């Protein structure tokens, strides 16, 4: 579904990615792991169209998407939940979700998706009128994921949902992602929380200094000595 | 200040060479400005009038650039300070019979004082807020001058005695040129001093400047006051040269004309605005007289140039010159390197 080959990318003065190869198949739940500053966020931003690809290609369902503007990528069916969340602080939860469904024309579908989000995160339902700027950290994450789901993306990119969350909300966030995956949403998840992540995903990549250094199923990587030493502290 | 000794030998030679070249260019330009009225067509009274206007505009643009280019505050009420100087000097001459020469100084003082007060109010704000605040203060000042008709005669216009006992434009040109040079000299001196270093630090990054122990407000106000004082000085000249004053002198349009010259010339250089003012002013004046059937054409050009500079050409003329000079230096440096290496 998503195929990245030889992706090089970065910022004005600093190249971050030095040839990333990865692919995500239909229905898969894939994680991208790595230390701080490895370029995980940059990879997602490159897929979503926020940073340009210097070299290599990103294709989605056979269609070249590198070089597309972010809104086109979104319209092509890739949802992106960023690290910063980028919610609309002066809008209510409900309105945030409505904006999320900007590309959806069918009113019934919008309603169904809102119901789905509310079902997944009952908390959002309870507070649907509250302004996003006044939500707690956990609620914001839920809203960001919920907003990302509104256009029914076929692929969801999620950047560190556990960042800044206490253990219990973290588990809730992972749980929600797992549920989504079961419902057939393809997910590419960036995480630092290696242990938990490897237990819920199908496959994972390890990115270090802008290059993919390891790839395997969750179990394989849990058993890998490098992963154990560098990420699990074993 | 800048410790020249710490630099490697080659670049010190370069710096010395560069400043010598700059000095030579400046002297050449000044000489050119002095002999210009003797070169046709500038021998005619009409052209000499343009020259006076050009030097006047140049001085205003330099004073404007002193704040816009160095502390990054756009004084949208600039013309009002010109007006304060003009009206002060004019009223002193009309009501008290003060000689215009002293009036100019008084005008500069008055504009400086009002500038000081405005600066103390405005410069707590930054960016667009400071610009808008200065703009509104300027509007309020203009409103006062327009409404206090008992003193200023408002829109009816105030008749002002001439600065010199002659109608010949040539002496006025030299007076204005002297004022322009004094403005450039004083402001350049300030910029080159420690104070100027602080201005730059503040203009580039207010927080960092504050962190390194600079009290920004003091420097900002100092800069603003100086700029306003020079604006007032030119205003005095304006009053006693054109001999009729209306509040329109203080309007925002006048500010934008000066602003356009400053930005087209190149923000943050002083010399860019000063030099570009001459061709720009004289060119547009010629256009205006040649194409009297198209009123406003010259200002359309000002607007258009300002737009082009803002969108495509942020450094203005000075930026282009600087880039070219840099390119030239690199090239000749490379050539020099090539000769030395082939010689050894």
């Amino acid at each position, binding site marked *: 579904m998503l195929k990245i080959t030889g992706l090089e990318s970065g910022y004005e003065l600093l190249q971050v990615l030095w040839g990333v190869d990865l692919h995500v198949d239909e229905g898969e739940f894939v994680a991208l792991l790595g230390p701080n500053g490895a370029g995980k966020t940059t990879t997602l931003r490159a897929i979503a169209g926020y940073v340009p690809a210097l070299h290599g290609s990103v294709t989605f369902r056979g269609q070249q998407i590198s070089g597309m503007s972010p809104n086109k990528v979104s319209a092509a069916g890739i949802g992106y939940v960023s690290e910063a969340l980028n919610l*609309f602080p002066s809008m209510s939860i409900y309105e945030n979700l*409505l904006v999320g469904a900007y590309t959806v024309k069918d009113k019934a579908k919008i309603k169904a998706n809102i119901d789905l989000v509310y079902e997944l995160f009952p908390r959002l339902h309870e507070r649907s009128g509250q302004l996003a700027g006044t939500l707690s950290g956990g609620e914001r994450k839920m809203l960001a994921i919920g907003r990302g789901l509104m256009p029914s993306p076929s692929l969801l990119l999620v950047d560190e949902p556990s960042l800044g969350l206490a253990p219990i909300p973290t588990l809730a966030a992972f749980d929600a992602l797992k549920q989504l995956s079961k419902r057939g949403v393809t997910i590419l998840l960036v995480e630092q929380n290696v242990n938990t992540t490897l237990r819920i995903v199908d496959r994972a990549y390890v990115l270090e200094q802008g290059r993919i250094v390891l790839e395997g199923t969750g179990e394989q990587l849990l058993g890998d000595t490098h992963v154990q030493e560098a990420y699990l502290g074993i | 200040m800048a410790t020249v000794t710490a630099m490697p030998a080659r670049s010190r030679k370069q710096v010395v060479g560069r400043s010598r070249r700059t000095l030579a260019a400046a002297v050449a330009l000044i000489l050119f400005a002095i002999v210009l009225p003797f070169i046709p067509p500038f021998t005619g009274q009409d052209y000499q009038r343009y020259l006076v206007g050009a030097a006047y505009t140049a001085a205003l643009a330099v004073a404007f650039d002193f704040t816009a280019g160095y502390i990054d505050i756009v004084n949208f009420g600039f013309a009002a300070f010109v007006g304060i100087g003009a009206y002060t000097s004019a009223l002193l001459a009309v009501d008290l019979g003060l000689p215009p020469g002293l009036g100019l100084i008084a005008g500069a003082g008055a504009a400086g004082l009002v500038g000081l007060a405005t600066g103390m109010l405005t410069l707590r704000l930054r960016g667009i807020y400071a610009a808008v605040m200065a703009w509104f203060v300027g509007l309020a000042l203009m409103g006062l001058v327009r409404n206090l008709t008992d003193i200023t005669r408002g829109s009816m216009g105030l008749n002002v005695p001439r600065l010199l006992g002659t109608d010949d434009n040539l002496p006025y040109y030299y007076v204005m040129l002297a004022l322009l040079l004094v403005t450039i000299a004083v402001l350049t001196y300030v910029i080159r001093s420690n104070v100027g270093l602080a201005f730059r630090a503040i203009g580039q990054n207010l927080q960092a400047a504050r962190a390194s122990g600079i009290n920004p407000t003091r420097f900002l106000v100092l800069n603003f006051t100086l700029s306003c004082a020079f604006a007032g000085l030119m205003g005095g000249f304006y009053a006693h040269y054109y001999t009729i004053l209306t509040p329109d002198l203080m309007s925002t349009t006048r500010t934008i004309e000066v602003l356009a010259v400053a930005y087209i010339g190149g923000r943050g250089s002083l010399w860019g605005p000063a030099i570009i003012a001459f061709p720009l002013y004289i060119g547009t004046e010629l256009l205006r007289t040649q194409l009297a059937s198209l009123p406003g054409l010259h200002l359309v050009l000002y607007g258009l140039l300002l737009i082009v500079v803002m969108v*495509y050409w942020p450094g203005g003329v000075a930026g282009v010159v600087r880039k070219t000079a840099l390119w030239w230096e690199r090239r000749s440096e490379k050539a020099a390197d090539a000769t030395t290496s082939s010689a050894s």
Partner: protein
Amino acid sequence: MTTATNLRTVPLARRFLTFTWGVVALVVLVLAIALIFQPSIFVDTLVTGGMWALMAGGLALVFGVMNIPNFAHGEMFMIGGLVSWVIYQPIRDAFLNDPKNMFLQVVGPIPGILVAAVVGFLVGVLLETVLFRALRKRSRDQWVMNTFLLTAGVSVMLVNGDRMVFGNDYRGVPRYWDVHSLQILGVPVAVDRIAVFVIAMISIGVFSYFLQRTRTGRAMRAVSQDETGAQMAGISLNRIFMLTMGLSCGLAALAGAALLSIFPNSPDVGVQPLYLAWYVVILAGLGNVQGAIAGAFIVSLLQTLAVTYLGLGWVDVAPTAVIILILLFKPSGLFGSEVKGVWEQ
């Protein structure tokens, strides 16, 4: 479903003790007194306030969504008046030749006013696509200040372009609707002014509905709050910027057209409306559209009071003084602001 629960958490009494609400209460009080002792102040405030609301609402919108402090906003007012004048002249001649033609007399001014709004919209679209997009592509450093100066250039160009083509003369119409004044609260009010008020109210209503309830309006607000977030939702920034600039300029042109009989068209007719719109926007907080609509009536009241008690020359000076005070003590505006991060830009 969308009640703002966060308001409930602030005790009611405290909300009413704030500076802002103090000012609002004062305004309401003055208006109430005016209503009893000098109804003309009340009527004048409402009639001009409506139009300044259109001007200021558009100005605030463009700042909120695009971070552009538009100095050329007054020229959109000027263009609106010009377009309406050009279109209305032949219609007026037609019914002056045929005085019995009631239809033309009643409906005649409408095409000019509508076309003016459309032309204003198109000019806005043009400004965005030709200028702002190019600048955005080059650099977004110092965006706010650069666009301010850029629009100053646009303003000078448009004013003098108009002067070049149409000359310095006033181009006005004595009245759009040449009928007897109506009595409102014992004050005679020209039908033109009533029409102006009605046009303003309808436009404000449609504008607010558009921003609050429609998909595109919501997208505009989304862009103003978080550009990246909006892009994530599939919103094209370029499209929204284009529409925003168009809408803003269209509203200003509409105001200029509707007010043609009160502000006869000339190259610099936009100057005063520009100042007023800016006063309002500063009063309300840059980028706060709803605040701007409310603030327009406050500024209009200040103006009316200044004219009534100080004389016509002070119509701008008095509000300027008040606005300077507000800038000094509450630069974020009376009503706070939705925009963040404009301080150091």
